[in-house]
């Protein structure tokens, strides 16, 4: 068991700050790598050591395996934490580090490769007894076969044109009569739109919830699950709000999903933290989507309800320690909600925002956590993706966590760069969110959330007053028009 002296973080921004925090707690030195545009970033200031890296673009620097390995060598790092994104699921990076005698804090190359391929991972899932979306991948001969196969899969089903795309040549069927008609219409549409009338069928998952299971495994094969996270609030397939536990799952479904996730992890001898993603329908039927062989952005909500520091666990496991936890040790207490703070203008079609953070103030209060990659005077540019921070709250139950995150969003001060905090607040105060009626089509369905509240006259007058009363020139007596009688009392035009 070799303890690490120095860990290099092959990442930047918020997750680098996160990893550094655990490293400091554990008494391990941290090494940051940074492109010049990040030289003033908080994570660089907080790391014990920092090595400058370069590339044809800022992002390219963080993807340069040679550059990162060189930084490891020059800094004497024993291990690398890859964060998420960038090289975190790059099997070649893992391989190269291992060959260089540097520990990659994560699973082994084979597991990364196996889960990185959608077809391979789905086949592995099936073999491991994990539910996958039932589908008959061969094309249907005729309407009779369409009806038979649809019945085998179970309604509702989606009849899809093989050559289709963009929503064309797709038909939902809820019973055999609709399957027959749907097949015939889909074939005709496909023939006329794509010149190819082939149709196949798969299970249609209506109002799907995105629910994922956190797994943790050590090098000895001890593999456990740490409950689930629901990440159904997504805009254009990007997660916006996540929570743990899911407001929808019951203990039995949680247990089934958890056990299947563990079975899949074991099938690839998984080590470290990983996430198995599923979609879940209103009948609580769940189907495997994919496995992410890294720490996820939304890991904090799991940490809040389990009391476990996942980054610390990853590091200990990579050092060769045993998990030290059995499945029975894992209890889920309370509820946590996370909001992703993006530098974007939700009132202008989410165009990315830039600028200097002229004022920055973190909300205080019980159960409030801000994982931020930015701070006072940070310059936000379009060099990287626009996620600035994550605001996470914990409560004894969902209502308390929700009330706390709504309050914290209103108290979070970030001036100088437009952020999505108001948009997030509108999502959270929608009655369907409060009732837990969430699914991946939530934001598409509730377009009214896009509309910001009208500014009241009271607000407008106060804001105008505030702006002027703090302007030096405006307040300077020398700039006033002559009002010789003004000092004597009130006057009117």
């Amino acid at each position, binding site marked *: 068991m070799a303890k690490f002296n120095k860990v290099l973080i092959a990442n930047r921004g918020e997750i680098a700050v996160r990893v550094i925090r655990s490293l400091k707690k554990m008494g391990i030195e941290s090494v940051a790598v940074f492109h010049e545009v990040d030289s003033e970033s908080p994570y660089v200031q907080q790391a014990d050591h920092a090595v400058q890296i370069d590339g044809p673009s800022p992002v390219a620097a963080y993807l340069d395996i040679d550059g990162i390995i060189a930084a490891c060598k020059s800094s004497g790092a024993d291990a690398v934490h890859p964060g998420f994104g960038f090289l975190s699921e790059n099997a070649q990076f893992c391989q190269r580090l291992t060959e260089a005698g540097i520990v990659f804090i994560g699973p082994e190359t084979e597991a990364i490769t196996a889960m990185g391929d959608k077809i391979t991972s789905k086949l592995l899932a099936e073999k491991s007894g994990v539910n996958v979306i039932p589908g008959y991948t061969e094309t249907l001969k005729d309407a009779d076969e369409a009806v038979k196969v649809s019945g085998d899969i179970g309604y509702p089903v989606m009849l899809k044109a093989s050559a289709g795309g963009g929503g064309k040549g797709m038909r939902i069927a809820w019973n055999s009569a609709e399957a027959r008609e749907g097949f015939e219409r889909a074939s005709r549409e496909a023939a006329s739109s794509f010149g190819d009338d082939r149709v196949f069928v798969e299970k249609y998952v209506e109002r799907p919830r995105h629910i994922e299971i956190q797994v943790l495994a050590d090098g000895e094969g001890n593999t456990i699950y740490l409950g689930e996270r629901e990440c159904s609030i997504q805009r254009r397939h990007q997660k916006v709000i996540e929570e743990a536990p899911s407001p929808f799952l019951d203990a039995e479904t949680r247990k089934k999903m958890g056990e299947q996730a563990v079975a899949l992890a074991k099938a690839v001898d998984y080590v470290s933290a990983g996430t198995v993603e599923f979609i879940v329908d209103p009948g609580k039927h769940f189907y495997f989507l994919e496995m992410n062989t890294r720490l996820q952005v939304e890991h904090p909500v799991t940490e809040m309800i389990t009391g476990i520091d996942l980054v610390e666990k990853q590091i200990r496991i990579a050092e060769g320690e045993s998990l030290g936890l059995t499945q029975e040790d894992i209890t889920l207490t309370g509820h946590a909600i996370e909001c992703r703070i993006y530098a974007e203008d939700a009132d202008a079609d989410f165009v990315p925002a830039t600028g*200097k953070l*002229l*004022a920055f*103030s973190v909300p205080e209060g019980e159960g409030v956590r801000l994982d931020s990659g930015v701070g006072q005077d940070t310059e936000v540019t379009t060099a990287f993706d626009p996620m600035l921070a994550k605001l996470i709250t914990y409560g004894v139950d969902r209502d308390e966590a929700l009330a706390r995150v709504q309050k914290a*969003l*209103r*108290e979070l*001060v*970030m*001036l*100088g760069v*437009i*952020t999505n*905090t*108001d948009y997030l*607040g509108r999502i959270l105060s929608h009655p369907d969110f409060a009732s837990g009626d969430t699914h991946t089509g939530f934001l598409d369905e509730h377009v009214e959330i896009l509309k910001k509240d009208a*500014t009241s006259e*009271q*607000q*407008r*007058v*106060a*804001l*105008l*007053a*505030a*702006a*002027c*009363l*703090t*302007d030096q*020139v*405006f*307040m*300077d*007596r020398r*700039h*006033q*028009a*002559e*009002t010789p009688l*003004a*000092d*004597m*009392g*009130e*006057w009117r035009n």
Partner: protein
Amino acid sequence: MKLDVKFENEFHSVDLLRYCGGVKLRIDGEEYPVALQANGPGQYRLSLNGRDENLWIVHDGDEVFVHAFGKAWSMKLVDPVDFASGSAEDDGNSIVAPMPGTTVIVSVARGDVVKKGDPLLTMESMKLETVISAWRDGVVDQVNVEVGSAFDRGSVLVSLKEEA
């Protein structure tokens, strides 16, 4: 001292009135007694209309960022005097009155060739006379003012022909 403030794509006029009791603001024609107290770096307490608000306020050039009522806001301060004396307009071809006033002198006519800085007209507003000068080289197109006539805020005073 008067300011025009661009907020949510509209201009609002704000005027400072001092009197024995303190300070009043005339905002879009309405008067409000106000008081502002600093609470910490960037933090203030505003008293207006019998209500107190806690706000964060930061100035950056002519931009003002405010956090209040649980949200972030931004505004642009425009000094009508600066504006009138030749700073850029939206389409670069015309100058728009930043406040109501009267024309005192008209210095150009349609067809005149002007150089940047040449006087176009002199206006009077709030007992202040201001010369409005050409913001670029060009040829005078429309002159919509005449000596002694009054104009509203937002009216086009003089325009130059489109640049070639």
